């Protein structure tokens, strides 16, 4: 057992925080969001130069070969800066699926392009009826003489408008909620038969709803010719949850620091707000929630390579803990900033909205509490 960061990890965390502080100010971010594309390709290039797009990708494909600890350090920094670039989709979820499912040829083709920043990817998984259930898939992939055709509807494809290719989860075999018979397809954006509706998301990013109408694909579009992809999709979702937990901790820490600083300087009734015990204790409660969330995220990080039940249970644990903590910290930060807290003139509300998004992406707090109950039943029965 060893719970200390290595020197390299410490340097990575420092570098990530420095980068965000220097390159991703509130004003810079606002400009990125208001640009036509809605994100910064310069920032993306710099991520590639820093090696962060290959953080979790093995060295043989040009990556740094890091693990969940390294990813967590970078994500916490990205959380501090409310970075909207599609790091989660392209540098965490997509490589995870490609590494878990892809053929050697697919890995060699796709992974180096991710590392180099040339290839942006997005996951098309959720469907209008699926809510958070990863096994609820009605988009159908049919084998044809020349390859595959895909038909169905996907919603909330995060980073969809920016993606060069989509990773589309589709059913090859079985009924709507069957765990078997699911595959992941690599689909070029704007393939004939695809209709995308692009929209902004509450946290400043962009997403698409996509209709697939008999979209024709070559045989090698299916990742690894794998028709039992659900376990890998679940693992990728867990990895995303764990990464977002660190991001949320970064968001919460900024909110607490900002709130403490504000209440120390804002004078009412002839004294700083922070002199009031009711506010002091509220901020102490925020700090406690953040410490717990940080610990819960670390717990999930360290379970990232464990057996699926342990890994998923830890990820759901973190989702619940971080979801509740994020809510509390964000709501109190807004409350303690008073009227200014509900305006777009302060960054507080933007952190609030990102924390709301994190709470929902890959499953709500209630969903994960229920998942934890079910996984615990398995653990306690063993």
């Amino acid at each position: 057992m060893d719970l200390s960061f290595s020197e390299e990890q410490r340097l990575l965390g420092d570098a990530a925080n420095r980068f965000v502080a220097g390159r991703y100010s509130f004003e810079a971010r606002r400009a990125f969001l208001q640009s036509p594309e809605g994100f910064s390709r310069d920032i993306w290039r710099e991520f590639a130069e820093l090696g962060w797009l290959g953080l979790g990708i093995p060295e043989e494909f040009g990556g740094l070969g890091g693990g969940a600890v390294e990813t967590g350090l970078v994500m916490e920094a990205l959380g501090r800066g409310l970075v909207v670039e599609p790091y989660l989709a392209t540098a965490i979820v997509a490589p995870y699926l490609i590494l878990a499912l892809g053929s050697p040829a697919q890995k060699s083709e796709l992974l180096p392009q991710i590392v180099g920043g040339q290839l942006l990817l997005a996951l098309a998984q959720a469907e209008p009826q699926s809510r958070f259930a990863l096994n609820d898939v009605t988009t159908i992939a049919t084998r044809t003489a020349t390859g595959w055709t895909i038909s169905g509807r996907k919603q909330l494809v995060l980073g969809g408008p920016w993606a060069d290719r989509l990773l589309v989860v589709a059913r090859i075999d079985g009924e709507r909620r069957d765990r078997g018979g699911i595959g992941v397809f690599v689909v070029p954006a704007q393939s004939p038969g695809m209709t995308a509706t692009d929209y902004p998301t509450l946290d400043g990013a962009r997403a698409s709803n996509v209709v697939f109408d008999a979209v024709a694909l070559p045989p090698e579009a299916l990742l690894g010719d794998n028709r039992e992809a659900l376990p890998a999709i679940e693992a990728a979702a867990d990895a995303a949850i764990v990464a977002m937990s660190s991001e949320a901790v970064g968001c919460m820490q900024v909110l607490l620091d900002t709130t403490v600083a504000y209440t120390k300087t804002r004078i009412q009734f002839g004294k700083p707000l922070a002199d009031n015990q009711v506010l002091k204790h509220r901020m102490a409660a925020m700090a406690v929630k953040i410490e717990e969330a940080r610990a819960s995220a670390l717990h999930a990080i360290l379970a990232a390579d464990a057996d699926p039940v342990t890994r998923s249970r830890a990820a759901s644990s973190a989702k619940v803990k971080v979801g509740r903590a994020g809510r509390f910290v964000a709501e109190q930060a807004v409350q303690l900033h008073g009227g200014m807290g509900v305006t777009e003139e302060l960054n507080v509300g933007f952190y609030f909205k990102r924390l709301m998004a994190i709470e929902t992406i890959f499953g709500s707090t209630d969903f994960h509490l229920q998942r934890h109950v079910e996984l615990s039943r398995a653990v306690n029965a063993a």
Partner: protein
Amino acid sequence: MDLSFSSEELAFRDEVRDFIAKNLSEDARRGTRLSPSAIPEKPVFGSWYTALGKRGWVAPYWPVEHGGAGWSPAQRYIFESECSRAGAPRLLPFGIHMVGPVIIKFGSQQQKDFYLPRILSGEDYWCQGYSEPGSGSDLASLKTRAVRDGDHYVVNGTKIWTTHAHFADRIFALVRTSDTPKRQEGISFLLIDMKSPGISTRPILTIGGDHEVNQVFFDDVRVPVENRIGEENKGWTYAKYLLEFERGAGFRATGLRRQMKELRELIAQHAGGIVDADASIASRMSEIEIDIDAIEMIELKLLSDVQAGRNPGPISSVLKLRGTEISQAITRLGVDVIGYDALVWEPRRPLYGLNEPPVLPEIELAVLPAHLDTRAATIYGGTSEIQHEVIAKQMLGL
């Protein structure tokens, strides 16, 4: 960073398991389960304490030269988890975790030589003389007075909430030795023999029906000056050092996991399948497990930081605050699980030594008293409100 155990650590775990198998009696386990209050009584922990003493594991966290085991953080965690899992009694904290570390850090050589071995052997059973009827959270307002008379202090006053004073051989007490305007600078730290003439105790029954705490009266009690820790009027420094140990020492998560294990056994035996039948109980169990995972991670990280020479800081307040709240949530769930049986009042004590069979099945006997007694957990050792003050001041600079 890695949570898994090395082969050496796994070998140590086997060693601990083997020790527990050979030395933890069924009586000690049963007595522990049937001890609703924070700390079991001597008949429950006696044989376990003696066995640990012989092995050198009573106070493993003390410096090796004073009888500590020199364990790594992983070994500490393994030892505590295994003891909790096996249902071993919690050891009295007053000697091992409180006055022991103070004597080691601030005591004279003579005091170390005399007191420390007696703690390790179990010969001396200590209690804590901090709170007074007029001094709870505002500890520095304490009034129990020690007046110098030759080579003795003459102590007059009263202490309250004194856990196990009715069993204790010695008490460590904060006493006022000066009336300086800054109240903290007029306090001294004395080690007092409970058999001294002039000491009397009054039992205080708590709402769980247990006699755990007392009021202790000092009426012209003569205490040798050599029983003072460190310097006169510097007692507050030593007292604060002790409080940090009280809040931060030990492992809350392993104890909480034991509580959860007992709760699962209760559920299994009481109404087989109640968790399946009642979705809200299953959800509350998961919420608590999730809380414990976080607390455990904070503790492990803290241990690792301390090992690396970093100051743990006010995180011990976070652990005290949340650990006690989680413990309360578990005991409250226990009460909800047994339903109507939570209205059955068992007035007899000790629960592990009843002469006539109780109304309730044995597995339920301690559920209600434990719930009621645990209400004290967010009050003693610095209330939750004081912990918020500490966190606001030390973590946030407020």
